[in-house]
């Protein structure tokens, strides 16, 4: 795995940091690679937008911050707006379909999931972040599924493992059902193509 940079955003209470934490843990602790996770602190973390970044690699990570993410996981409109221009030209957007009015760009792959609705369907909207995590894991294919599932088990509060694994699997399945293996992502309709900002 060459260095991969990821940003996860959402609003406070969505479990943005836990989502990023599990990705990092799965890659470093379970898959034997390296990952550095940094959650945003400071005034920006006090408001409604919340964000965490990850650098994943099979080599030691020297630079801890990210510059431009390869993958951008957006769970809220505000977080999306704040960071969407950072995504690399050939980057991948993973977003909460019902909450994020994504403006898809040419060259970038985009994958949407109604993760909140799916979580509600499982009886707990709280596990939205884990649905999103399962979806992310399937989209990115960066870390073997079992390693991420194990990281979910080890990171969520005791007693909630089963529910969270269900949420994870629901997110994963959504990808398989709607995009299939090797998917190119959402079609970029002409109307939504955003030209580079002048």
């Amino acid at each position, binding site marked *: 795995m060459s260095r991969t940079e990821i940003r996860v955003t959402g609003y406070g209470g969505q479990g943005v940091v836990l989502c990023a934490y599990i990705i990092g843990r799965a890659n470093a602790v379970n898959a034997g690679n390296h990952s*550095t996770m940094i959650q945003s602190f400071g005034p920006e*973390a006090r408001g409604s937008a919340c964000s965490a970044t990850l650098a994943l690699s099979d080599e030691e990570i020297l630079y*801890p911050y990210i510059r431009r993410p390869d993958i951008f996981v957006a769970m809220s409109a505000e977080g999306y707006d704040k960071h969407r221009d950072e995504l690399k030209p050939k980057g991948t957007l993973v977003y909460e379909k019902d909450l994020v009015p994504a403006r898809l760009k040419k060259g970038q792959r985009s994958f949407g999931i109604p993760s909140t609705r799916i979580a509600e369907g499982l009886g707990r909207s709280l596990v939205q972040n884990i649905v999103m995590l399962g979806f992310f894991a399937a989209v990115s294919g960066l870390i073997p599924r079992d390693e991420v599932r194990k990281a979910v088990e080890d990171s969520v509060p005791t007693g909630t493992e089963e529910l969270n694994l269900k949420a994870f699997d629901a997110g994963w399945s959504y990808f398989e059902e709607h995009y299939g293996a090797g998917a190119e992502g959402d079609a970029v309709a002409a109307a939504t193509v955003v030209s580079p900002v002048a």
Partner: protein
Amino acid sequence: MKADPAGVLTGVHYLDGDFACGEGAMAAGCRFVAGYPITPSTEVVERISRRFPMMGGTFIQMEDELASMAAVVGAAWTGTKSMTVTSGPGFSLMMENIGLGAMMETPCVVVNVQRGGPSTGLPTMAGQADMMQARWGSHGDYEPIALSPRSPQEAFDFTIDAFNLAEQYRVPVFVMMDECVGHMTEKVVIPPAEEIEIVPRKLTEKPPGEYLPYQNNGNKVPEFARAGDGYRFHTTGLTHDERGYPEMSEECQEKNVSRLLEKIRGSADKITRFVENETDGADVVVLSYGITARVARMGIDLARKKGVKVGEIRLEVVWPFPEKRIRELSKKVKAFVVPEINYGQMVLEVERCAAGRAGAILVPHAGGGVHDPESISSAILGAVK
């Protein structure tokens, strides 16, 4: 001796530097922590306050950092390993009783998760601008020991080292972390307790009548008696004789201060610790510490790709400074390049040791983030032009 298993969370974890530091303290046998909340250090005591009740430890949130440091020095005199944790503004308040700790020769640990300064500065963003404060912050002459971790793993390892050094030399030892390492989550391997080497508090074996609290024992580190064991000793922040009695004289001051300094200076070779790479035949040596050591490596790699012979020195123990090695190297290299998240602190030490034989080039950063590796490589390239 080996660590008390009660404090050791053996396993492979994914932890931030603050949590890892807290785990290091508990693994080292720390059982008393006094602190006052301050970003970005608070997670250390949050971790500890959660786990302490299960291992016979006591955490108290004091009314301020003056009190926290005083309580830590007090608790250390009971033999219980003690620590406090803070950031710049609190570090400033602690200086008073850090001096008391140095004067009374009290083994204890102070963690400073550095943020940008001066004053309230950048509470949530990185800095390395308290390095000279760690060296000189309290008034009077004393020699501190300080370590600087560059990752959560090192935050764990170096906190254990800090406790061990505090026991060996009877001084307050600093863990000079920074916000970036403190708030960065990475893999941390915590070994089984029987693989963690701990220096226990060594108590005097002399009976109360014969014991002198500040007697020079050859290695300059006096023997320790803890409160409550019948020694009825006296200790003071005033200049004191071997009995720990105040004595206001030039002779006593000379004896006292020179021993305080010599117990560290005389053992500097044993205490200093750094990683050295490819300095043989190097034209430039990059010296760095803490989080900056990581980006410095990137800068070195960039410069090497352009054909420059670059060596690397990464300090693990920052105080005492490895004067001897820098002096030797200064006879062989053109220049030292010193990136740090401040406007020139450790570079002054490099300059002092290089004494004009080699250049000492600062790559400053005012705080709030880490260097661009390119700023470091271009300083390296500039040094060989």
